């Protein structure tokens, strides 16, 4: 046993290793990424770990492993489960042999996501059990219980931490060793082949099992009640810790219920506190899942209770919770005094939206396309990754962004309805492999006139530099053959493919002009590594010949270029020497200096 400060995602990974997981697959996505990375880093040697090409592939790989009796885990963020929902829904009917955990991290806020969707709905929809930890230390214990639970009932289980659990660190006692599983191997049986008749029979079994699991969860020790009184607060996830903190601060007492299994809903456990309650408030981030279950149970049992929460206007639907937010909600609910301290208003503060890093090759790619398309009617469809930040001024080059891979296909719909406009889709290399290939194939087969710009920076940058098929590295530390993007798009039927270095502005603009004037699908591959992959060799400096026209500031928006007492200044600690600014300076007053 060693006492360590670990991040929630590390705790989950260490718990899974101790539980004897044999295979971990996933696709990177904030806030889930560090789970798989930690398993790879701490791999005792016998765990197979892979970043799969997308979440659907990852879930199927993990399911196949679990068919052999091995323990497997698949990791993704909440929107990743949308991609993996096809195998998820069917796997709930088929079941598993070895314990299988589907780790899906939700992101209240959202802090780094497209949606605030609640994975507990997916658990209900697919009829799968869901575990919802309240702290990193609880997640460490709970992940092992989730594996055991999955194996006992032969169904995959969803493990659903949220951002503050994933990225919060806590003091955890890490157990030594690892539970070794004896595996029978895959045994051929008609039960592994989904078929309408089998699905009907299994549907009956699933519903019966859900009733049984409701009883099991009613005695699960992590669903717990503390305090006393007829006023009840039911809380889940990190909201439970905010509630505890708020109650201490208010010196208020009530019964506080921690509920960590929203599905199958532990009805008998809920009855134990509902029957003696005068009022009930539910505190859960995202959707009113527990609230609705409690309301329904009151209806079933004929209990004359109002369940207060989102539907009743007591708590907000959107955004993450905090101790401050709950202080107001709880104090008004329990009628205890609380006054929010009034502070003097602060001076005007600068706005700091996230921006593309200084030296980021995506900035040069966007600028090259902007220059090439100057004066033409064009729509720029974007995608998910660092390059979504190309939406910010002064680049202003992302007109749409929907979900992974959608930029290429949205462009096709736009083009069909507005054929006189040029449609240019941007997609990063990892996103291209994830779901972009299908879009290119669709455009080529249907002969749609669009240009796709693939931003190949040789990594999955936004989530922290994970390998993908174009990098030639795997999570097992092996060197694999790189998948050649150029050959791949040609094989998809694209006749016009240009490759250029975006940091060579003239060459880059010419490549875009040529591709955009091609009738049919054309592809430009902009190849230049993410700045996190190398150290700068030179730094740019402003020469005395600078006329202070500020074109560099107005046009490219590099965070290293600012004004200092009215004069243009390049901050040496930020500059990566990409040289884009030197190529647009009208008087050639920016040049590469020493790297020091």
């Amino acid at each position, binding site marked *: 046993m060693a*006492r*360590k*400060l670990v991040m929630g995602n590390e705790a989950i990974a260490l718990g899974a290793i101790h539980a004897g997981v044999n295979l971990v697959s996933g696709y990177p996505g*904030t*806030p889930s990424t560090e789970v798989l990375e930690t398993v790879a880093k701490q791999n005792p040697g016998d765990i197979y770990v892979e970043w799969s090409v997308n979440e659907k592939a990852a879930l199927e790989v993990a399911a196949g492993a679990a068919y052999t009796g091995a323990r497997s885990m698949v990791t993704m963020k909440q929107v990743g489960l949308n991609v993996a929902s096809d195998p998820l829904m069917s796997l709930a009917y088929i079941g598993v042999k070895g314990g299988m955990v589907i780790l899906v991290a939700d992101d209240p806020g959202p*802090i*780094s996501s497209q949606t605030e969707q609640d994975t507990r709905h997916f658990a209900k929809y697919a009829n799968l059990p869901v575990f919802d930890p309240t*702290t990193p230390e609880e997640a460490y214990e709970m992940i092992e219980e989730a594996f055991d639970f999955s194996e006992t009932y032969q169904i995959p289980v969803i493990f659903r931490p949220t951002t*503050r*659990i994933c*990225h*919060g*660190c*806590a*003091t955890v006692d890490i157990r030594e060793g690892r539970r070794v599983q004896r595996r029978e191997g895959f045994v051929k049986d008609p039960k592994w082949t989904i078929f309408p008749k089998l699905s009907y029979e299994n549907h009956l079994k699933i519903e019966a099992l859900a009733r049984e699991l409701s009883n099991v969860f009613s005695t699960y020790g992590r669903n717990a009640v503390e305090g006393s009184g007829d006023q009840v607060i039911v809380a889940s996830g*990190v909201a439970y*810790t*905010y509630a*505890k*903190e708020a109650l*201490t*601060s208010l010196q208020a007492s009530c019964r506080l219920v921690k509920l960590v299994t929203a599905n199958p809903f532990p009805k008998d456990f809920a009855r134990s506190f509902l029957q003696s309650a005068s009022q009930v408030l539910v505190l859960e981030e995202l959707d009113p899942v527990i609230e609705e279950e409690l309301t329904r149970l009151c209806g079933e049992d004929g209990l004359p209770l109002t369940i207060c929460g989102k539907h009743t206007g007591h708590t907000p639907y959107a955004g993450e919770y*905090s*101790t*401050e937010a709950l*202080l107001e909600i709880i104090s008004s609910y329990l009628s205890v005094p609380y006054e929010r*301290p009034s*502070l*003097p208003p*602060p*001076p*005007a*503060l*600068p*706005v*700091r*939206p*996230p*921006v*593309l*890093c200084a030296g980021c090759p995506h900035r040069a790619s966007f600028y090259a396309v902007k220059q090439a398309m100057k004066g033409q009617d064009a729509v720029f469809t974007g995608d998910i990754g*660092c390059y979504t*930040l190309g939406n910010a*001024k*002064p680049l202003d080059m992302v007109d749409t962004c929907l979900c992974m891979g959608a930029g290429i296909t949205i462009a096709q719909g736009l083009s069909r309805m507005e054929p006189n406009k040029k449609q240019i889709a941007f997609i990063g290399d990892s996103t291209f492999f994830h779901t972009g290939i299908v879009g290119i194939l669709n455009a080529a087969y249907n002969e749609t006139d669009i240009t796709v710009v693939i931003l190949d920076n040789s990594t999955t940058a*936004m*989530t922290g530099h994970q390998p993908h098929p174009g990098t030639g590295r795997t999570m097992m530390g092996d060197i694999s053959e790189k998948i050649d993007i150029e050959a791949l798009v040609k094989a998809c039927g694209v006749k016009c493919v240009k490759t250029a270095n975006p940091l060579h502005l003239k060459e880059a603009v010419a490549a875009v002009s040529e591709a955009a004037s091609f009738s049919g699908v054309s592809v430009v591959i902009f190849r230049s590594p993410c700045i996190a992959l190398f150290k700068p060799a030179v730094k740019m400096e402003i020469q005395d010949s600078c006329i202070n026209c500020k074109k560099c*500031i*107005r046009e490219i*928006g*590099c*965070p290293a*270029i*600012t*004004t200092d007492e009215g004069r243009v200044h390049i901050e040496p*600690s*930020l500059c990566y020497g990409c040289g884009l600014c030197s190529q647009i300076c009208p008087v050639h007053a920016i040049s590469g200096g020493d790297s020091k």
Partner: protein
Amino acid sequence: MTFNCLMTGVGGQGTVLASKVLAQTALNAGYFVRTSETIGMAQRGGCVTSHIRFGDDCASPAVPQGCADVIVGFEPSEAVRGSVYVKPHGIILVNTKAIKPITSSLTGQEFHTDEMLAYLRTRSSRVIAVNGEALYTLAGNPRTLNIILLGAGLAEGAFPFTRAAMVAAMRQVLPEKLWAINEKALDLGLSYLQYQ
């Protein structure tokens, strides 16, 4: 005893590493420690915060507003943004060097360190302004700002630890090749008053 500290700055300034060092020091001293920080999209030049809590009563991952014993502001305007967390008579340690976002250069909206410090002084009587730029220039690397600020905090008694305890934690958190420069940074921070 519960100790709450909030570190605020701009993505890339090293708040995460500073929070790791402080957390490791507390862990070594036998405390139950909790931390929480910004990871992901917001890191790219955006505002970042780290919450470090240790002691008996820290259920949640975030320091509640008005409860921070210490605010470590890596940048003056970010210190102001974080100042809602400081408790009455808490310490606000602030680096005086401002970082202008690109939006500021594009719109011409300026802000000044003096104005930020004046506001901070309305929030607490214990505002400690540190000339981080002068100190990291002496240390030889702007990336040492985080450890310099920890050193200045030690000098002011902001953290309940000794220099030796923090050095031991730094050695656990940092690779060996970075020990010397960071110990130098810590000592520069400890003697920050000489370089104001």
